[in-house]
């Protein structure tokens, strides 16, 4: 247990160093967040004042900006797992990686998770500074933060599975970049990254709760603004939905992987 923790810390350290190694890139991400959040602030400022309401979808203006800060940080932290799997499949380096004692999909998922958590923390820290400067702090509850952290981990795991599905489809598709784009854009729009689900037209909201996308982004971040009385129940419901998605997506990955392995052994990678 201790050893695993040490390994994780080592991985995190390396990732963090890699994240800070290029000041240009840090500057780039900072500018990106600053511009995007400033524009969002202006857009929602106008929207709040013209609708004459102090709360929209249960969020005050400051809370809305913090919501968008977190979703943007999550979005920006996604490593290029799908492209990497695609490349492994195409170049045949998958066959080499099969020799490793750890199963390939599990290896991908864990590496993805480690890298993503570090990148996310980093982006969030940067975003939080900007949000603080723009709208100041909001009231946060310790238990809601803890629940957010747990469900964000699950969300990242789900997204990792999504990436794996896209990447592994390289066994059957000539080009996965189209599928990748569809997947990420659906996450962006149906996941509620740009606009909370509660502001969707009714029919759309009723539809998307049956899809995995809201649980990748909106679900976890939404917990921060859930009233105290409903918090535990909401978290539980989210966890159940995320786990259901986890089971379904894992089954799909397992199926694809099994088929893929058969192809690898038949064609030798």
């Amino acid at each position, binding site marked *: 247990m201790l050893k695993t923790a040490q390994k994780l810390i080592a991985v995190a350290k390396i990732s963090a160093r890699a994240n800070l190694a290029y000041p240009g890139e840090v500057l780039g991400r900072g500018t990106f967040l600053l511009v995007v959040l400033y524009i969002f602030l202006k857009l929602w400022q106008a929207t709040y004042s013209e609708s004459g309401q102090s709360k929209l979808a249960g969020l005050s203006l400051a809370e809305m900006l913090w919501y968008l800060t977190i979703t943007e940080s999550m979005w920006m932290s996604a490593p290029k797992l799908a492209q990497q799997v695609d490349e492994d499949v195409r170049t045949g380096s998958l066959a080499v990686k099969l020799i490793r004692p750890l199963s390939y999909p599990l290896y991908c998922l864990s590496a993805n998770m480690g890298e993503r958590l570090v990148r996310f923390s980093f982006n969030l820290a940067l975003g939080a500074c900007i949000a603080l400067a723009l709208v100041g702090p909001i009231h946060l509850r310790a238990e809601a933060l803890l629940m957010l952290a747990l469900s964000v981990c699950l969300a990242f795991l789900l997204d990792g599975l999504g990436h794996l599905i896209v990447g592994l489809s390289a066994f059957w598709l000539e080009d996965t970049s189209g599928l990748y784009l569809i997947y990420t854009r659906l996450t962006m729009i149906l996941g509620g990254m740009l606009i909370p689900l509660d*502001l969707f037209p009714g029919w759309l909201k009723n539809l998307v709760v049956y899809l995995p996308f809201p649980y990748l982004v909106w679900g976890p971040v939404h917990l921060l603004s859930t009233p105290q009385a409903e918090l535990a129940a909401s978290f539980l419901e989210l966890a159940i939905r995320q786990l259901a998605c986890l089971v379904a997506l894992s089954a799909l990955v397992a199926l694809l992987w099994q088929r893929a392995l058969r192809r690898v052994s038949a064609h030798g990678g």
Partner: protein
Amino acid sequence: MSLLSYLRLAAAYIKLNWRMQMEYKSAFASQFLAMVLNNSTWLAFWLIFFDRFPVVRGFGQADVVTLWAIASAGFGLSAACCFNLHNLAALIARGQLDTWMLYPRALVPHLALGKLSPTAMGDLAFGYGAYLLLVKPDLEHFLMYVFLTVAVAVLFTGFNLMRGSLAFFLGQAEVLSEQWFFSMITFSTYPSSLFDGWVKLVLFTLIPAGFVAGLPPEALKQLNWNMALLTGLGALAVLGFGSLCFALGLRSYQSGNLMEMRN
């Protein structure tokens, strides 16, 4: 004679670029569709947004579709025809202007024509498609739209010259140039009426997105040719300034030697 010869040169480049893209048809198609899909995502966001809040700062669904149609078609036209200018900072930093200076042609137009981008063609097609299908303009609106997309393309071309020329003065300016571009693109896709004060000033100078997301949608809404003309003038001013930056920078061009000499 001169203009004609450049038109012929443009035709020759378009022909070659097209043939090259056709060598890789499926990659071309997927890049093209990717851009259409990407822009559609943003349009979907705005449709959802305006479904809930019909008017914000005088903007509604139709206006935002118009805005995206102008921004993406204008940007697409510029990048489709002048893709080399898009990566100008990198070309300068790596001394890759050399090749272009060995030809008896005006450097900027020749360099600009040298490369077409298939993703940009996706942007261009998306813009025109969105405008024709979703806004359904009458003839005069459509004519103004065409004029505005050309003006915005000129603006982006000038802007690319401006940000790319940074590399002449700073050497490594790729990150800065990219951030500048990113800010321009982002501000170009949100209604300029959201901003005021000094930011508004910035949007008509340093980050001239006001000539994309401010004046043009308003001009089309009111069918105001004066505003459209003003957009055109702004675009020409930016092109002029960008060309000036490039001409001044070229004097201190150090080719690729900077790298060699460090060893």
